[in-house]
């Protein structure tokens, strides 16, 4: 335990700013939903909403979970699980006809 180094932490005011950013992103997501309801954007809607979700995801993981400042080994474990899940389930969704896998 004594060997654990303490990497730099954001300050409380930075945490608040991040929270405001997250709230704004959420508001944009909800706005997108209604915009899409009114003026069907097709797959652009999905693209934008997924991009926004990814952004929120990365911000929470990087700053609130502190992964940005931790040793890269932790990122590798975490990312490995994520990529594995994404790949495996993408194939299942393809096989079950939810997403089209080209070919």
């Amino acid at each position, binding site marked *: 335990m004594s060997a654990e180094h303490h990497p730099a932490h954001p300050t409380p005011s930075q945490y608040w700013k991040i929270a405001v950013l997250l709230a704004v992103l959420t508001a944009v997501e909800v706005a997108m939903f209604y915009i899409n309801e009114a003026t069907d954007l097709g797959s652009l809607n999905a693209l934008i909403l997924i991009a926004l979700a990814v952004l929120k995801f990365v911000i929470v993981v990087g700053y609130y979970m502190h992964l940005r400042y931790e040793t890269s080994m932790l990122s590798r474990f975490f990312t490995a*699980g994520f990529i*594995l899940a994404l790949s*495996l389930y993408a194939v299942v969704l*393809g*096989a*079950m006809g939810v997403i089209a*896998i080209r*070919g």
Partner: protein
Amino acid sequence: MTATAERPQTTIFSRPKSTTGFWSWVTTVDHKKIGIMYGYAAFAFFVLGGVEALLLRIQLTQANSEFLTAGAYNALFTMHGTTMIFLFVMPVGAAFMNYLLPLLIGARDVAFPRLNALSWWIFFFGGIFLYSTFIFGTSVPPVGVDGLGGIDGNLAAGGGPGSFNFLASSPDGGWFGYQPNAGPLYSPGTAMDYWALGLQILGLASLISSINFIVTVFNMRAKGMRLLRMPVFAWMSTVVAFLLLFSLPIIAIALFMVTADRQFGALFFAPTGGGDPILWQHLFWLFGHPEVYILILPAMGIVSEVLPVFSRKPLFGYSAVVFAGAAIAFLGFGVWAHHMFASGITPVAQAAFGLATMTIAIPTGIKIFNWLGTMWMGRIRLTTPLLFAIGFVAMFTIGGLSGVTHSIVPSDWQQTDTYYIVAHFHYVLFGGAVFGIFAGLYYWFPKLTGRVMSEKLGKTQFWLMIIGFNLTFAPMHWLGLQGMVRRTWKYAPETGLEPWNVAVTIGAFIIALAIAVFMFNWYTSKRRGRLSGLDPWDARTVEWMSPNPTPEYNFAVPPVVERLDHFWHLKYDEDEEGRAAAKPDMDQILSDIEEEQLNPRAPIHLPNPSYFPFFVALGIPVIFYGIIYHTTMWGKALIVLGVLITLSSLIGWSTEPLEEPHSEHADPDEGYAHEPAEEVMPS
């Protein structure tokens, strides 16, 4: 934080103290005792699974046999598969990993000793829960379902001659529980709930273990034990831990969906409600395929330890063997639908998965060639562990070759659901994993007991086993290709399948005899076997630097590792031709090591035993019994009771320090007390 001399008493019950006797086993957090318990439990289930197999074989010896009803047969092959996979091979792997992993990396215990005990108790209660289906479970034929009446009206496992009435209560949906056959409509009764919930409990045990082992390997290695200096078995254990970590959550969800269908009326797999049976197959095999690598990699690790020692040569291509193991695991996640070639997946999917399956042959081949390369030009000592290891290489290769034939899709369409497949997986799982396990048992027996097993009995067992095994499973290749269908309780005489089936059954009983010889050998060797001393095999790796039987603290002085096969290089130099030459003072070196390790010069502090893992684990099957009977008052009461037991034990656990502080320099808030300053560390 302030340090105080006295310790606030936070637990209601005082900390258990015993190190011997019954309660010491119930409260132990020592990885070695836990490993031993896993081993004995696994072996007991091995015998049960074997009896189930023998009953199946008796039925199949004769055409149109009435020995078992169809229902009884279904129950037996379900329980045989479930038992062998989840209650034998996996826990025996856990037994080896628990006992050996800290020793192999020069550590005193795993990262989380109490969590380790928890895994064991969860497994133990899970196994009992699953087998309690024989007492409490019910399995009745589906009623009023169109098109079903049972062949000869004997779909029911119970009733009539050849039904073995106790089988009327056991799961009969196959170890793979295909839906909707194993769902509420076609498998009414509670037996398949015992199956689904039992596996759920067992999965939880393994998941917890996997986290423990990963942290142990990454954080607890002795000084100088770099990752690429770890023994291969330690590497394979790590790879297996990752396989478990990532595959178990999938089966947990799948089993929950089955329980939701069966108990709560969900419609995940019910065709009449819109559920998709193929979804079950995807989710099950997403777990199921990594599972088979979980079953085989520990045995591959054992073989990689045994072959070098008895060939008196280093493992050929250590890094390649390690990376091949990791590659097998990685690729193993991408091939699951090769179990589904005949289930209606698209041609593109078939081609992709067929190709992916073929690629696994590459790292597997690397390992096989490297094992052969290890033995080539070695100075072979034909001991029992080596015989089993060689048997592994030969039998696993055969099984691997038949596996490659399955990867060719049109070929698989002919082979699937025939005995050809049964031959394949028994060659890799029995000829492979089980032979590897026996190699390991003979090899590491001295660490447990300080004695060596009888070579005469060992060789008897080996020859009986290899003959019996091949007699049992080789004919299944051609029986399958001749059309003998799996999971079917009888065949007609006109098929001409009977003569070879007789041979198969004889082989099965020879295997049983071999196991009996083993059990006799184990029992007598424990009591009267030749004493082993520190290094009975002239071994290579650091677990042999700890005395036999292993002291509770493992190493009085943890080794400082300088290179791969560190122990070997303490004993041997290289001559001008690069050959091993024993150091002139080798005997003195060994006796010095033994003396140092048997006599610690300072107090060694170990985690205290604990009641809590036992009780946390106990609550879990109580909850699950409650789920099965949740529509009754008793069921609801059991759920509440189980939650109370587990929750209160968790609270107790969280307030109990891993170790009671030593009186002189206790810091009650410091979770990890320090080594005493005067403890001697190796220079």
